[in-house]
């Protein structure tokens, strides 16, 4: 694949998934000159966090989250495309149609690497559903033309079940960019970041944010 122009596609369902889960890795790719596009499934309009102190409500949340996403994208120097689904409903969408939608975008962008959630280990149903749809979408592409798919696993039991991840990135060199990207998601991240700051910097949570790890998905016919 080295002769091809690389393009990283990050496919997650909510504004802020990219910042918490992959913004260090995204920064690494950007420093290597690789364009990055975030396909964001929904606007997270059913989120529970309304800012701390509260400044949003159920009907204004999507406006805030859209602006926050654009700010995070500017911080990370990436493109954003909205897929237009509604928060919490991805698992109920017709799965063939969802996969086809993703396949078209993947081919349009000539993606060489995709980052998405590990189906079954994403904790949030939207994470699992979109990860599953990405697998299905890539399976629709002829072997040999398929991008690599890197899976982000979140659930507490993931390492016990899946073993050591294939990629483990220490993203300390990109920490400032990651923190700025997370903080851009003001309605969601403020309480959480304050919590982290209060904690010892050696805490498990803090360390987890400084490492990003992924499993390479093996397609049967690769």
């Amino acid at each position, binding site marked *: 694949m080295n002769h091809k122009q690389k393009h990283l596609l990050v496919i997650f369902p909510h504004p802020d998934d990219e910042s918490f889960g992959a913004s260090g890795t995204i920064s690494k790719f950007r420093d290597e000159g690789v364009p990055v596009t975030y396909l964001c499934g*929904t*606007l997270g*309009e*059913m989120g*529970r*966090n*309304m*800012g*701390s*102190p*509260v400044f949003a*409500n*159920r*009907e204004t949340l*999507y*406006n805030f989250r*859209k602006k926050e996403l654009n700010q995070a994208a500017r911080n990370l120097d990436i493109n954003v495309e*909205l897929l*237009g*689904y*509604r928060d*919490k409903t991805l698992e109920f969408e017709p799965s063939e149609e969802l996969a086809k939608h993703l396949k078209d975008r993947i081919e349009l962008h000539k993606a060489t690497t995709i980052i998405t959630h590990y189906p079954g280990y994403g*904790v*949030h*149903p*939207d994470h699992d559903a979109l990860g599953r749809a990405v697998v299905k979408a890539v399976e629709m592409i002829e072997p040999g033309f398929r991008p690599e798919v890197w899976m982000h696993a*979140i*659930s*507490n039991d993931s390492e016990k079940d899946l073993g050591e991840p294939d990629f483990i990135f220490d993203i300390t060199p990109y920490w400032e960019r990651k923190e700025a990207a997370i903080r851009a998601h003001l309605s969601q991240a403020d*309480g959480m970041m304050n919590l982290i700051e209060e904690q010892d910097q050696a805490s498990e949570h803090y360390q987890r944010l400084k490492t990003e790890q992924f499993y390479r998905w093996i397609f049967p016919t690769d």
Partner: protein
Amino acid sequence: MKAIEQSVVQEYINKFANKDVYIHLETTNGAYASHFDEKAYNVGAFIRNAQVNYQHGKIVSTGGSFRVGLKLDLGWVYAEGLSDFEFDEHGRLLMAGHDREGRLMVALEISEKPFTHEAEEDES
């Protein structure tokens, strides 16, 4: 949103009575409840743009938060734990209850026009 003033909200509830209105009703404890605490359960429900026509509605104080009940010809709409409200620029009555960290736990909203459904363009 601001703290519910019972008499103000009661008047808005009265204004929507005997009209075809759209309801957004929701309760949630978040998608990560059992991720952060394995003893917890994830519980939630929402209905968006249910069209109803209520005979009358009432807001009741529980000392700290409020319950709202809307009486339909064939049933009820009910929400507990409401603490904040807003009558927004689109003429919608938004009510919600938040936990100590400001996270939404329950919402009941009433509108004469359907609530937006898609991740659509910024309307403001």
